């Protein structure tokens, strides 16, 4: 029995190694340089997104979708359109919420966890996360993506987010997927589609 487990373990290690390889230090330096160069060029970004909430006990992932807009230095709007309307804007330390037409506001600074999450989201969209002291970072590559894995150092934060995984397009150096792990089996995955860089984005996109 032990022998079988040992082989199974080896098999899985081998399998995951095939799927994702750790980057060498040279590759890491190269990758960071590419992403930093790409994100330095990003003044605005608009993109569609699909969010999948995966929990092991569910038959299907809970899927929501909408549009996201980002403008330098740190205005960010998430607009869920399906299956319900809900938008949240992070701007000048404020969080503006529009829930099916009902508007509310809160101070991001008053909520430490929220402001850390905000920083993480802006950082993950713009790719400016590698200097973040809040996370332990490791780097991998798969067939399609370069992957950066962030583990929060703060225990309070780790209760909410065990790990954040950003998958970057190999050519463009921009984020294609965000995966927030809450446990070994449960995660939220956000996939970006139809990304448009540096087109004019009106301030009204962040007015909510």
């Amino acid at each position: 029995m032990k022998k079988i487990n040992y082989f199974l373990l080896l098999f899985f290690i081998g399998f995951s190694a095939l799927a994702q390889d750790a980057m060498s230090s040279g590759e890491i330096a190269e990758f960071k340089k590419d992403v930093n160069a790409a994100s330095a060029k990003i003044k605005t970004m608009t993109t569609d997104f699909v969010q999948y909430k995966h929990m092991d006990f569910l038959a299907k992932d809970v899927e929501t979708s909408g549009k996201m807009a980002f403008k330098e230095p740190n205005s960010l709007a998430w607009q869920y359109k399906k299956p319900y309307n809900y938008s949240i804007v992070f701007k000048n330390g404020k969080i503006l919420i529009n829930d099916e037409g009902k508007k509310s506001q809160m101070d991001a600074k008053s909520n430490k966890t929220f402001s850390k999450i905000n920083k993480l989201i802006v950082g993950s969209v713009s790719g400016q996360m590698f200097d973040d002291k809040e996370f332990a970072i490791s780097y991998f590559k798969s067939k399609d993506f370069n992957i950066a894995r962030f583990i929060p150092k703060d225990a309070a934060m780790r209760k909410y987010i065990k790990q954040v995984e950003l998958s970057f397009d190999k050519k463009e150096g921009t984020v294609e997927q965000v995966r927030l792990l809450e446990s070994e089996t449960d995660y939220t995955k956000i996939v970006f589609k139809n990304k448009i860089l540096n087109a004019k984005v009106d301030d009204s996109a962040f007015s909510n």
Partner: protein
Amino acid sequence: MRKLTIPLLVTSFLLVFGCASKPKPNAKTEFETVTNPYFSNPETDYTYRTKITVYGHELNGILIAKKINDSIHRVVLTTDFGNTLIDFEVGQNSFKKNNVVDDLDRKIVVNTLRDDFRLLFREKFASSELEQSVSNGVTTFESTDGRNHYRLSYSANKLISISKGSRKKEQVSVGFHSENNIFADKIQIQHRDTKLKIEMSHFAP
């Protein structure tokens, strides 16, 4: 539990043998099992956009419920971004707290939500013939289980509300609106003594 089991057993025997013989004049009161079908299918992921209002504070998110075995429902509340706020396994006689964020991890919050979910997910209630009434097209069944008194109302054969309290005073009520009688499109849980309200709207992800 025993108190519930016995009437249920009596009910099932009556259902099987009830038609065969005339009830004796001094026969015990007949019990009928009344049901809440809205969370009963173990194949279904029940997903609701949910707003919880507590003393003026609002909490929005997605509530996901699923019957994971004969006696237990798993219920998870997440933010719109998918972060889990609570994750409970709720049975009528069991409870497991898998996860709850610090801000909500207060005994009173956890216990209140646990009891609300127990009421929401409970499928069977025993009601005696004497406890049934019809008024304005609404049939009401009353059911007593230990110290708790329940009242279930049906309109056009659809469950429209369950309330729980003592015989004299209602503590909490759950209102349902269902188009198909398979799941509820809208649910509202309202407390009488505390300013707590939970509003849920079904969505198909």
